């Protein structure tokens, strides 16, 4: 017999799995975790996740980590589903997640592009170390699909920026 407590437990375990590329964030902070359910008859746990970017190679690690974490917590029958709808955007990231990112030295997403079109404008990105808005983009593509590389013109520190998406 599945109880609400077990479902909450499974949710807590799944939500605590860390993103392999930004380990300071959990998949719940990131908005990658969409749903956790338990089949009442069989006790099968179904976890639904969504990719940040289509080619994100972290999805396979996240899937394996979910299996390991849930099985260690006693859920022996675990199914991981992937959904593409609704598509992930940076709006799915929690405010707590954005604060954790800043503390980790990664500038969080600033919101949607100010002007959309073939030659877009974007809002200033705040330096996660000294909070200066005098920053510049060094490279539009960074160490992972979801980040770009920036530099602060006041403290001169280079930093990652989690792109608006």
């Amino acid at each position, binding site marked *: 017999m599945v109880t609400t407590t077990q479902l909450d437990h499974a949710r807590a375990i799944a939500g605590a799995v860390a993103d392999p590329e930004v380990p300071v964030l959990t998949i719940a902070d990131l908005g990658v975790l969409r749903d956790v359910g338990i089949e009442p008859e069989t006790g099968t746990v179904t976890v639904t996740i969504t990719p940040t*970017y289509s080619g994100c190679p972290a999805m396979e690690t996240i899937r394996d980590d979910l299996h390991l974490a849930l099985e260690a917590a006693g859920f022996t029958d675990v199914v991981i589903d*992937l959904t*593409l709808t609704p598509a992930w955007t940076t709006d799915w990231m929690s405010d707590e997640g954005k604060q954790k990112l800043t503390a980790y030295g990664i500038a969080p997403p600033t919101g949607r592009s100010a002007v959309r079109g073939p030659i877009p404008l974007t809002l200033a990105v705040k330096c996660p170390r000294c909070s200066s808005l005098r920053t510049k983009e060094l490279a539009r*593509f*960074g160490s992972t699909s979801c980040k770009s590389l920036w530099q602060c013109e006041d403290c001169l520190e280079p930093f990652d920026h989690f792109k608006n998406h």
Partner: protein
Amino acid sequence: MTSAQNGTTELAPEDSENPHGAVTVDQLDLEAELAGDADAIATPETAEYVLWLADDALILAQQLSRWIAHAPEIEEDVALGNIALDLLGHARSLLRYAGSASGRTEDDLAYFRNEPEFRCSWMVQQDNGDFAHTIIRQLVMATYMFALYTRLADSTDPTLAAIAAKAVKEVEYHRDHAVQWTLRLAGGTDESRTRTQRALENLWPFVGELFRDDTSIEPLIARGIAARPSSLQEECEAIFTAVLAEEDLEVPQPQPSSAGGRHGSHFSALGFILAEMQVLARQHPGATW
């Protein structure tokens, strides 16, 4: 499906004389679950159209990944690698959906189809050439893909709509990257401008195929599943014109195209691209590491 791809057969015994070790295929089923919505089954007609998109993305990803460690600066190694990774993600979701019509996996379709079975346009088969050549090819393909996925995000086929809604945000970024570089190369040195101009002249004969209507997809257009290729042309040309005009370059005259990529008649380069892409999977079917 052959026994080599059904997820159970061990293909090479563990023995010390085999330099490649034991190669097994037990991962294939696991990997497939992460390539897109699991349960949707495409009709054969939809699957054929989905291969147009899948193969454009797959071949362009394969081409772009050759720039890694060869780009003019390290940031471009990363940028082109990231763009290739996004495109590979689109290709995986699309191939998985296309394969659902015939019980084939994304790997079956990527690695075990021969040249005439591919449905990619001739544009993605053009050589990387110099950096300007790759950037102009990106300008064309990212602009085309953005227009196409914007429309397909409203497709009446829910799986195709979901993949397109995801992909459109990524190709918008690719288009932005190509626009920025086109402006810098065209407005840079005499040499970079000459090469940009040459790339436009070399690549423009292959633009027409992207916007050419094809009777084979008319039933899908009528049902709101597919987008009519010619209906994307005006919006794409407006962008080409706006970007090139920033640096006083003209869009070359459109040329009639006899390219037959959508029916499996390909440019001579595709065979070489496939040979490189498929050799490992064919020599060691199901290899994992």
